[in-house]
C-alpha cells in the first residue's frame, strides 16, 4: 500500500485554521460556558456576586456585537491536537503551520503580544517563541486533524499548583488540596473558575492532564465513575466556600471541576490544579485530509 501524503494546500489550510481558531477563541465563548454563566446568574443570591455575573454576561454579548475580544489577555497560546490514526498529514509540517498561524493572527488582527524571554523579558511580538505555542498531541480514531485552541490567560495560569502526595496521605488529602488551591487562588484567577485537576502519572504528565481537564466542556464528567463522583463532590464543596464571582463573595465560586487521571507509581499520587478564568476561551477546527475546515468549540 503506498504511503498517504497530503498536498501543500492542506498545510496552508492548517495555518489559516490555526489563525482563525485563535482569534475565534478570543471572541466567541463556547455555548456550554455561556449556559453555565446564565445558570449562575439566575442562581446567585449575593447581590455583589450577581452584579459581577451580570457584567460578565453583558460583556460576552458586547464582544460578539462589536466583533471584539472577550478579555484583553490574549494568553499563552496552547494547542491540543487530536490526530486521526489514519491522518496523512506530516506532524512536523502541521506544527510549523500552527506556529505560523499563531504569528499571523497576532500581527494581522493585531493581538496583544505576550511571549517574553524569561530572563531578559524581551518580547518576541508574535505570541510565539521557544517552545511556544504549547503543543500537545494525542491520537484518535479517524483520518481528520482537530486543532483545539486554548489561549490561556495569565491571571488564571499564575494560579497553578502541583503536589506530590504519597499513598499514606489517602484520597481525602487529594480532595482537601484541590479546595486549598481554590482558597489560595481566591479572587486572582477571575472566578467563577473551571477547576482543571490532573491526578496521577508523573509531575509533567499530571500538569498536562490538569490543562486537558480545563478543555473539557462544562457538564461533562470523567468516564471513570470513581473519578466522576469526586468531580461532583468537589464541585459542591467548592461552591460552599463563599469566594464568589471576582472573589468578592457569593455562591458561585466554580463552574465545574474536571479531573483527568493517569495511572501512577506505587509510591506516589501527584495532583495538579490548573484554574481557568470565567472567560474560558476555547475553539476548535477540524481539518480533513482534503483540507476542508469546520470550526467549532
Amino acid at each position, binding site marked *: 500500500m503506498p504511503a498517504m501524503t497530503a498536498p501543500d494546500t492542506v498545510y496552508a489550510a492548517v495555518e489559516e485554521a490555526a489563525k482563525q481558531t485563535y482569534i475565534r477563541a478570543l471572541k466567541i465563548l463556547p455555548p456550554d460556558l455561556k449556559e453555565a454563566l446564565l445558570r449562575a446568574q439566575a442562581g446567585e443570591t449575593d447581590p455583589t456576586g450577581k452584579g459581577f455575573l451580570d457584567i460578565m454576561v453583558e*460583556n460576552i454579548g458586547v464582544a460578539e456585537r462589536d466583533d471584539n475580544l472577550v478579555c484583553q489577555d490574549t494568553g499563552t497560546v496552547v494547542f491540543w491536537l487530536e490526530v486521526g490514526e489514519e491522518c496523512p498529514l506530516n506532524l512536523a509540517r502541521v506544527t510549523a503551520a500552527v506556529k505560523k498561524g499563531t504569528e499571523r493572527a497576532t500581527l494581522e488582527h493585531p493581538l496583544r503580544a505576550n511571549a517574553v524571554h524569561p530572563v531578559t523579558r524581551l518580547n518576541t511580538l508574535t505570541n510565539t517563541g521557544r517552545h511556544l505555542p504549547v503543543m500537545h498531541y494525542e491520537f484518535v480514531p479517524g483520518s481528520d486533524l482537530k486543532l483545539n485552541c486554548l489561549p490561556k490567560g495569565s491571571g488564571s495560569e499564575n494560579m497553578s499548583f502541583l503536589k506530590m502526595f504519597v499513598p499514606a496521605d489517602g484520597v481525602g488529602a487529594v480532595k482537601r488540596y484541590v479546595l486549598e488551591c481554590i482558597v489560595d487562588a481566591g479572587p*486572582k484567577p477571575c472566578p467563577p473558575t473551571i477547576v482543571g485537576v490532573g491526578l496521577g502519572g508523573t509531575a509533567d504528565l499530571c500538569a498536562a492532564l490538569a490543562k486537558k481537564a480545563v478543555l473539557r466542556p462544562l457538564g461533562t464528567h470523567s468516564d471513570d465513575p470513581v473519578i466522576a463522583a469526586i468531580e461532583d463532590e468537589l464541585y459542591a464543596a467548592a461552591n460552599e*466556600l463563599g469566594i*464568589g464571582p471576582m472573589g468578592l463573595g457569593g455562591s458561585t465560586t466554580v463552574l465545574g471541576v474536571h479531573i483527568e487521571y493517569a495511572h501512577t507509581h506505587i509510591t506516589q499520587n501527584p495532583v495538579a490544579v490548573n484554574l481557568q478564568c470565567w472567560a474560558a476561551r476555547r475553539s476548535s477546527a477540524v481539518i480533513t485530509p482534503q483540507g476542508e475546515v469546520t470550526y467549532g468549540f
Partner: protein
Amino acid sequence: MASELKLTFPIADLDALRELRAGQKLRIDGTVIGIRDATQIAMFDRGERPRMDLSGSVLIHTAPNVRKLGPGSYEKVCIGTTTSARMNRFTRGLMEQYSVRAIIGKGGLLADSLPVLREFGGVYLAITGGAAALETTQIEEIEDVEFEELMPECLWKFRVKDFGPLTVAMDAHGVSLYESIKARAEAKLEELAAKM
C-alpha cells in the same frame, strides 16, 4: 448601601477619597492612567520618572491591545484589567512619590497595602476582570503613551466616560473586602475537609 457615585479624575484635593467606604459602587469620568508590571519596575527599580503628572490620578492595571496609527499614536482594540496582587509592592511608591490616590484592578492588593491606603487616603477599586469588550466601549480615546519600548506594558493615558461599575474593595479605613471573604473561606475549608 449608598447609590452609585460618579467621580472625575484627576482629583485636585488629594484627601477627597478618604471618606469612601468599602462596598461603595462608583463610575469614573475623565482620565485613567494605564500601568503594569514592567512600567512600575522601570519607574521604581530603575528610577525612570515619567513626564506624565500622576498627582491625584486613578491608575488601572492594564496592558491593552492597540493598533499603531503613527509615532506615539495608538487606537484602542481591546482594553481590560489584569491581576493587581503582582504589583502590590509598588503601592507605597505610587502614593508617596507620585501622589496617586486610587488604583483600579482585579483580585485586590494584599493586606499590607491597607496601612498605605490609610496613610495617604487612597482606595482600591475592583472592576470585573475579563470584561474587556465592555470596558473598551467606555474608553473614548488613548490620549498619550510613555515607555513605548515596554509595549504593551507602557504608561497609557485613557479618556473615559462612565467607566465601571467599580466597587471600593479596599478603603482608607483598614477595610479589605477580600480579607473577610478569605477568612470565611478558610474556616469553611476546615469544615468541609473534616467531612471528606
